[in-house]
């Protein structure tokens, strides 16, 4: 399959149209909130029942899955690629490094919607939940991201 650069808004539009419960997490979610951090990839946390519709929605964008849905569910994560790299987490719940359990359902229920123009929206976790996702498997840069998110949260509380 020929590699192609995916139009960002088309990507989010395709995900929204698929009907999949998909949360944009990782650094691109921070960027949506207004934090200037660099990243190459797209990271999504997807409801485990929605792998098929998510993949189907992205076929038209040329994004191919690294694993079958059944294998992806067993592994808890997979990748979609073609010019872009989309990491997909499909765990129903994840334990953070500090021992808290974060469930997809509660995170989805508290999600925020960001509008990208043209009627396209992307779902992201609320700030508290985004901080929790940064504790799933933290690297030094995740700690820095958490501090940025904490500053953003406190500035929002003051407004």
């Amino acid at each position, binding site marked *: 399959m020929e590699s192609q650069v995916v139009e960002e808004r088309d990507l989010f539009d395709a995900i929204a149209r698929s009907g999949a419960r998909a949360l944009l997490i990782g650094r691109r979610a921070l960027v949506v909130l207004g934090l200037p951090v660099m990243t190459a990839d797209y990271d999504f946390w997807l409801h485990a029942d929605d792998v098929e519709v998510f993949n189907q929605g992205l076929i038209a964008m040329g994004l191919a899955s690294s694993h079958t849905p059944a294998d992806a569910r067993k592994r808890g994560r997979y990748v979609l690629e073609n010019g872009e790299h989309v990491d997909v987490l499909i765990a129903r719940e994840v334990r953070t490094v500090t021992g808290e359990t974060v469930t997809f359902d509660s995170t989805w229920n508290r999600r925020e919607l960001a509008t990208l123009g043209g009627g396209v929206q992307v779902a992201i976790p609320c700030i508290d939940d985004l901080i929790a996702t940064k504790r799933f498997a933290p690297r030094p*840069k995740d700690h820095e991201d958490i501090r940025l998110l904490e500053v953003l949260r406190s500035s929002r509380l003051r407004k």
Partner: protein
Amino acid sequence: MTSPVQKTDPEVLAAIRALTQRLLSKEEYEALAAVPISDEERAEKLALIEWFTRRYPTPAARLAYIRRAYASWTRAA
């Protein structure tokens, strides 16, 4: 006069990647998280956020900027 961008040594890049991508243990994470955000750090981060959101006021503009910046950065690396 500007000087041409120097390519980064691949070994240096690999060392940076290894350092920044390694997973923190619970103890390492808790030690880092225990350090409070100082007033100076808070002000710096807020200034950065305010600059970014003023210059790129919408989520779409922010995402597009990061995409362009990353592409430009990786071309230079």
